[in-house]
C-alpha cells in the first residue's frame, strides 16, 4: 500500500519517519519536506476554514502521491503512496490516517514519552509499518 509514513511536529520538524525501503529514506525525506509547504498553505488561516483533519492529496509526483493529515494539535501525518497503485482508494488512505492517529495517540499517552521529542519506540515503528503495508 503506502511506501512511507512520516509524523511531523507542530514546529515542522520530523518526529517519526518510516520507509518500507530504508534505502530510499533520504529521497522520501525530501518529498515529505516539500509537501509541508502545501500543508502549511492549506492550514494558513486565510484560505478557508478546514474542519477536516484529512487534507487529501498534497502532491502528485511522477511515481508517488503524497497525502496529508493534520491533527487538532498541528501534528502532521504524511503518507507517500506509489502512484502506480490505482486500486488504492481515498477511503483506504483515510482509514490509514485514522489508524496512524490512533497509534500516535496511544504512543503519546506513554508517560515516558516527552511530547515534542522524536519518537523512537520500536513498538510504534512496528505498528506504523504494519499500517502502511496494510498487514493490519
Amino acid at each position: 500500500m503506502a511506501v512511507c509514513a512520516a509524523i511531523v511536529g507542530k514546529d515542522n520538524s520530523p518526529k517519526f519517519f518510516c520507509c518500507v525501503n530504508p534505502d530510499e529514506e533520504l529521497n522520501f525525506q525530501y518529498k515529505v519536506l516539500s509537501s509541508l509547504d502545501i500543508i502549511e498553505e492549506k492550514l494558513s488561516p486565510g484560505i478557508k476554514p478546514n474542519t477536516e483533519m484529512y487534507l487529501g492529496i498534497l502532491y502528485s509526483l511522477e511515481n508517488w502521491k503524497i497525502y496529508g493529515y493534520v491533527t487538532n494539535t498541528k501534528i502532521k501525518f504524511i503518507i507517500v503512496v506509489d502512484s502506480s497503485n490505482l486500486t488504492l482508494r481515498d477511503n483506504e488512505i483515510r482509514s490509514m490516517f485514522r489508524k496512524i492517529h490512533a497509534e500516535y495517540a496511544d504512543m503519546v499517552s506513554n508517560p515516558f514519552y516527552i511530547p515534542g521529542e522524536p519518537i523512537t519506540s520500536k513498538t510504534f515503528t512496528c505498528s506504523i509499518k504494519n499500517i502502511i503495508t496494510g498487514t493490519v
Partner: protein
Amino acid sequence: MRSSVSYILSTGPTEPNMSHPDYEQFSHDHAALLILLKHIGAQLKPKIFNKFYDRISKINEVKVTDSTGQVRNILVRFIKEHPVENNDWGDFQTHRRLLGLVSLGKYDSQVELNEVCRVHESLKVKYNATLYDSRCILFGPAGSIDDPEKEHFTTPSNFKTRALFYDELSVCADLEQQITEFISALFWVLESKRLERSREKLERVSLLYAPFEKKDFVGLDMESRQNKKRCTGRMTKHLGDLCLQAGLISECLQYYTNAADILKSVNDWLWLGGAFEGLSAASALVLYPNMQRNEHFQRIGSLPEGSPKKPSMDTLQNQTVVVKKNIPNVLSPDDIAKRYREAIIHYSKYQNAGIIETEASFKAARISVEQNHALQAASFLQNVVYINLSLSEQEKIQRFETLSDLYTQIGFNRKAAFCLRLAATRYVSQQNPSPNWNRCYALMLQSLSGHKLILDPVEMIEADQGWPILQVQILQDLIVAAKRAGYSALATRHMTFLLQTMWHNLSDTEQKELSIQLQGLSVQCEGSPVPLVFTLRDLKPHLRPKVIEKEKEDTGPFLFTPIHFGTGSLDRRRDKTNPKMEFVWVENEVCEVTLKLVNPLPFELKVSNMRLLTSGVVFESIPETVVLAPDVPTSLTLSGWARESGELEITGYSTHALGVKSNCRLKYMSNSFPSQYKVDVAPNLPVLQASTSLPQSASFSNIHDDNIVTSASVSLYHGETVCCTITLTNTSQIPIEMLDVLISSGLEPMVQDQIFQFDQEDVKIILPLLPAQSATFTVKIYGAANFLAPNSAASPTIPNEYNSGFFSSMSTSLPGTSLSRVNSSFRSSNSGHSSLAGGLTTLFQQQPGSSTVEAQLKLRYSGGGGLQAQYCRISTVFFMVELLPSLHVTNWDVLPAETSTQFYLVLDIVNLTSQEMELEYAPSKRMLVEAQESCRVPVPIDRCPLSKLSNFYDEGDRSLRTLMDVNKICSEHISDQAKLKWLLNTTDAKGVASLKGITLSSRMLDIVRMSPLDWDVRINGDTVTAQDDISCEAGDSLELQMSIGNSLGISIKDLTLSIQFYQDYNNGTLNYRMDTRLALSGTAKKVLPSLDPRDVAKHKCNVVFFTPGLYKMDIQCHSPDGSVHTTGQLIPMGHIWKFTPPISIQVK
C-alpha cells in the same frame, strides 16, 4: 494538469523548435512591444551600458493618442538578448516578435564609429524579418557632441538608422523623449499593420503556422471548411494579439473570445490554447495592471516563511471591479486561472510546444501569485517540472532558479530550497560540459534557509529545528561544493558548523569520518586564517565546577582584605547568581584554571594552542597542547597572567583541534555552566619567603592550611627556652610595606603567650622590606608546663581540706570563683576542672609524658598597589613543639625559717628526664639529681609581705574575696620567688621550672605571709629574734614584754592574746603541762576588745622556771569567728596568728 494524450498531435523532435525559453515572462508581456537594447562595440563599459539600460527600461509604458483621439496605453519590454529563432513563434504569439532595436555604442575615432554603425546595421539585418524600426545611441568622445561636424565624426553613408549622439557623462536630457518618440514610431507601424490585417477578409486569409506545424499542413486541402475555419480562427487570434499590443483591450478580448469559439470547433488545440492564454493575459492586464516585473527584488533567504503574501487583494479588486464591468468579455480572476490551465493542457499535447507550455506555466503562476493563490501557483509550477524539454543545462538551471524564486514568492520555502538544490546540482552534473562549482556553491548556500539552516551556529543550536537528516546531507553537499569550488576555508568552516550543530544527529561512524575529513580539510586551508568565532562542541568539554587557584610555591594563594579579615564578609559579598569566585587573583602572577575535557571521537585528538578566553582586564594566557584519548576525561590546567587589576571574566577557552581554531564559550556549552566565571584580580602584591632557624617538621599533623609555607619543629623540656629566628626575604619586585605577625593555635591565649613570645617592635623595624632584601626576627619558644604533681596532697603532714582536684585546676585564673562552687567541687576529679581550665589542663593531663603543641605563625603582609587596594597575603609558618617533661614537684610544704622574714618551701622534686640533672633551687645552692630520682630541697623564700595582701585586707565589703584569693596571691608570691633552674649535664639543656599554681593550706598561708600583727617581743627588755637562744637559770624571773601593732587598715575586734609554754620532746610529743615547772606572774591571756589600725597593744608578764630544760613559748593572738573579714567560714574556729618561730628558752 497535463493532457493524458501527450504528444499525440506532435511530430518528431527534429522539427524546428524554439529552444530558448524566456522564464521571466509575465502575462503582461503579451501586450508589450519587444525592444532589444543591445550593447555594441568594445568601447562602452558594461557598467555604463547597464546604467543606460536601467534608465531606458523605466520607460515601460507610453501613452499615445491615435488617429481617433483615443489614448492608447502601449507597454514596452526591453531585453538585452533575443535569439532570432524566437521570432519564428511571432505568428503564434505576436509579442514574441522583436519590433524595435536600440543599440548603444561608444567611439573615440571615426574608425570606431564606423565599426559601431556596421554592427548596428548587421543587427538590423539579423532581425530584419520582424524589426519595425531601430535607433543607435552613440557616445562620442568628450566634447564631440556639441560640435560633431567639427570633429568630422560622421556616420557612414550606408548607415540608415537614426543616430542619437550623447556624451556618456552628461545628463542626456532628451534620451527619454527620444525613446518615447521611438516607441510611438513603433506603435504607428504596429497600428498600420493591425489595421491592414483587420481589413483583410477573414474568409480569404492565409493559414498562420506555429513553426513546427508547417509540415503538417503540406498537401492538405486548405479549402476545406475545417481548414477555412482554422484559418479564420487563427487569424482572429492573431488580430487579438495585435490589438492587445496596440493597447486595444476590449477589441482584443473580443477577438480572443471569438477565436476561442472558432478554434474549439475545429479542435485546433495549440491555437485554442493560444487564444485562451491571450484571453487570460488580457484579462489579467485589466485586473492586475500593477503586476510588475520589479517584484523580483524579493530574494531568497531574506524572507521569513509565509511572508511574501500580498498584503491585501481587496483594494486592488475593488479598483478593478469597475473596469471589469465596463469591458465585456473580461474573465473573472478564477476564470483566468482556469483558462490558463486549459491553455497549458492544450499546449501539453504538443511536444514542440514545450517551451510555450513552460512559459505559460510560469506566467500563470505569476498571475496566481498576484491573486495570492499559493496552491494554484504551486500546481502551475509543479507542472513545469514535468515538461520534458531538451534544454541546455544552463536553461535547466535557469528554470529551477525561476521556480525557486516563484516558490519563495508564494512562501513555499522548502520547495524553493529544493529547486535551488536541484539547480545547484545541475551546475555540476555530469551532463554539464562546463561544471561551475562556484555557482553550485552559491546556490547551495541560498538553499540553506529553506532547510532551516542558519549559518550562525549559536542561533542554529538554539533554534533546533528542521530535518536533521536532510540538513546533514545538505551540509555535506555544501562542503563538497565549497571544496570543489576551491573555498577550502569555507569548506572547513562548514564542516565545523556541521560537526558543531549536527553532532547529536550523526552516527558514531559519521562523527568519526567527518572529523577526519575536517582534519583533511583544515590541512588544505592552512595559511588562510579565517576568524572562526564559534564553539566546536565535539570536544564536549567539562569545565570543572570550580576554577581552582594554583598553590604557589612560596606564598599562600588566598588573599584577604585586612578589613574584612575573619568576619566572613568574603562569603557575604558573594552573590549566589553571580558566578564570582571566592578568591582573588593577583596581577602579574600565574593563575590557573583546571578543566576536564572529554574527547568523544573514537581516536586520539590532539588539541593544541589551548588558551583561556577572557574579558575584562588584560589577561595573558599560556597556550597548552594536550592529546586527548578517546572517551577518557582528561584534566588540563590552563594558566596565564592577569596584567591588570580589576574584574576578570573567564568566558571560555580557545582550541586548535583538527586543524581548526575555535573559541569555545561557556555560555554555548550544553553543560550547565554559568556563562562566565568572574575573578577579582588584585593589584600586584609582594611575595615573601619565610624560613626558620629550626629544622622543618616531618609532617603537618592535624592543621590543614594552604598558607603554610614552611615549618619548624623543636623538642623542649619543660621550662626550657629556645629562640627561633624567622628569616623573611622579599622575592618579588614590590617592597613590603605592611607586615603583621600573629600566632594562632588551639591553645588558650594565655598559655600560647607563655609558649610563644616575640617582640612586635622587632617586626616593625623590618619594614619596609625592599625587593630581594632579607630581615629576621626572633620568636622565643618556652616549654611551658605545670611542674606540680597533680594528684599529690599538699603536704602529708597536714590533713588538708583542699584535695588534689584543686591542684589540677591550679590555673591562676580559675573561672567562677564562688565559694560554693569551689566547695562543692573540691572533691571532684580532675576532669571536673579540666573543662574549666581548658587547653592547659588537657595539655598537662598528659604529664608526665611528652606532649605536642602545634601553632601557626601567620605573616600577613602587603605592599605596592595591593596594599592601597587593601589586599594582603598570608604566609604561615607552622610550629611543632614537642614538650618533654623535665622535673616535677610531687610534694611541698612550708616550714618557718630561722628568721621571721623568711620561710622554707620544702619541695619533693623528681627528675623525669633520663639524664642527670643539676638543680639550682636557690642562689648558689645546687644539687644533683639522678635520672628518675627524686630529692627534697628547702627553698628559702621571703614571706609574702602584707603590702601584697593589703588590698585584700582593705577590701571593705564582705565580698566573694576568700581564702582562695589569699592563696592565689601567696602562690604567685612563691612562684615569683622560687626559680628552680635546672641543667641537664649531658645535653646542656637548661631551663627554669616555675611553681606557678602552687596551692597552700591555711596553715601554710600563715607561714607564707607576713602576719598582719606587728609583733614586738622583749625578754628582759631585749628584743627577741628567731635565731636568738635565750638562756637563763632556773628560778630567774624573765620579764616578757610584748606589744602587738595592727598593721592592717581596719580594726581587729575581740582579739585574745595568749601565752603558752610547752616542752617539745622532739619525738612528736608536746607537753603543755607546765604547772609544776614554771610559774607565771601576770595573766597568760589578755582580751583586747578592739585593736585599731596603727594602734599598739601592750602586755607584760613575768615567768619563773622551776626546773632546767628546754622550754618553748608560744605567743598567739586569737580572733574569734567573724572578727576579721578575711576568715569567713573557712576557719570556723576563728583565726590564730602566732609569733613565729616559737621562742625557745634554755633553762639551766
